[in-house]
């Protein structure tokens, strides 16, 4: 037997799950399990109690509602990958979904679980940051909405309380002149990112950048915001020069570590390149520019 023994609870409603989290000692939430199960198997995680939320049907959704794209805690990566709504309106999510791990893992792993895992190499956190997204948690005191910027604290550590359950992540529905994209560099198909950049650009009627969001993957201790690049873009008209400058600023603000896949200087250079590519895609998708330069 690979894992240490644990008590396995299978609640069927959010309310039941939250009361279990409140009453049990040191519970761990199991959703897709594509990270947690290997951790249990290696005994890197040894919870006495596992609250398995896969039976909570009310959390299985991916839809627009009340001005948000809402992704419920049981929406799998594959649900995002195969969604017509995502393909039509959410460029960055459509880019990212097929780049998460491999088909089997996408069939089981969840977007919310990946966000909750808070691996700095996870892709979805960067998109929540880029889009100004939020994490919705339920606890004994009811619902709490946590902005993405306040959610990720350290690798695998978030501002979620132990008795809280993430029920949903959400991003605002894009406005008409908005485009987004995600670019990811990985050593081979299925790998985690060596570096990844998600961007969301909103333009005004004159084609000037009204707001820019840039989230970076695997180049800091958490998914991180490239705020200097964002500030540089806002109020400007898109151009290859502008995107080049933004790429440099994003690279400067990244803090990658050297490892067997590449040294820090190389990864910073990749942040630069990926930022430029993602900005180009986002501006094109917003219908503001036709790409003339493909860096």
């Amino acid at each position: 037997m690979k894992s240490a023994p644990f008590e396995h609870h299978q609640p069927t409603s959010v309310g039941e799950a939250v009361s279990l989290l409140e009453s049990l000692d040191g519970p761990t939430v199991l959703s897709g399990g594509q990270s947690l199960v290997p951790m249990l198997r290696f005994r890197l995680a040894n919870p006495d109690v596992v609250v398995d939320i896969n039976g909570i049907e009310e959390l299985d959704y991916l839809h627009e509602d009340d001005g948000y794209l809402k992704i419920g805690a049981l929406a799998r990566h594959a649900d995002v990958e195969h969604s017509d709504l995502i393909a039509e309106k959410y460029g960055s999510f459509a880019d990212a979904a097929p780049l998460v791990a491999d088909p089997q893992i996408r069939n089981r792993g969840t977007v919310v679980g990946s966000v909750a895992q808070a691996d700095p190499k996870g892709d979805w956190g960067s998109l929540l940051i880029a889009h100004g997204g939020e994490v919705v948690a339920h606890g004994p005191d009811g619902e709490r909405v946590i902005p993405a910027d306040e959610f990720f604290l350290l690798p695998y550590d978030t501002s979620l309380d132990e008795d809280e359950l993430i029920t949903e992540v959400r991003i605002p529905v894009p406005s008409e002149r908005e485009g987004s994209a995600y670019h990811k560099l990985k050593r081979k198909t299925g790998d985690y990112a060596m570096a990844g950049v998600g961007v969301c650009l909103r333009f005004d009627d004159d084609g000037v950048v009204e707001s820019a969001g840039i989230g970076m993957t695997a180049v800091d201790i958490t998914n991180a915001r490239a705020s200097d690049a964002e500030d540089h873009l806002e109020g400007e008209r898109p151009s290859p020069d502008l995107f080049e400058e933004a790429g440099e600023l994003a690279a400067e603000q990244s803090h990658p570590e050297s490892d067997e896949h590449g040294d820090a200087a190389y990864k910073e250079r990749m942040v630069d390149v990926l930022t430029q590519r993602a900005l180009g895609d986002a501006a094109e998708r917003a219908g503001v520019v036709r790409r003339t330069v493909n860096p």
Partner: protein
Amino acid sequence: MSETREITLTVNGTEQTIDVEPRKLLVHAIREDLDMTGTHIGCDTGNCGACTVLVDGEPLKSCLMFAVQADGSAVETVEGMEDHPDAVDDLHPLQEGFHEEHGLQCGYCTPGMIMSGKALLEDNPDPSEAEIREAISGNLCRCTGYQNIVKSIEYAADKLADGERDDAEAVAADGGVAADDGPAEFDGYDVDGDGEFSCGAENCCGGPSTDATHRGGDER
């Protein structure tokens, strides 16, 4: 040892009820409790895909879920392929493809490759090479370089498409009743003269075995 729980799985169409601890991985339940060792354990970390099975039609890594989580589900493993309606002469077209196109060398990844291939062809009967490569991107092979695995799945796609065409023609010719074409020609080894494929090795792919119920799997 924690308490066990009774779960029911429909494995390759047969309902099976077993008692498992919550911490038992699905792959261990399949191999150890159900004695179906066709599903392999490779890396045990979710990387290699050798343990891929279909759960309610979707390819999943059975080392990345607990058996209790599959309670009530339909599970398909490589052992079910020879009994599949598309199978001819004890081999599913995918298995035949791996044989014909030399889609395996050591064979360790093959059960997972076949299950990923099955899920692909059910969803997309006429996949491009890129689509095949994407579908098996969660399955690692250290021998073949993948070329022949891709060809094997292409072989199966062609064979299944031919079968459908034949069925449609037969239906048309017979005024609605599908004809039975009978078993196809088979040119594999036949060491024990019973007309069934075997590679000749003991306890392998249907060769001489003390327990003949586990064709297609190893017996380790």
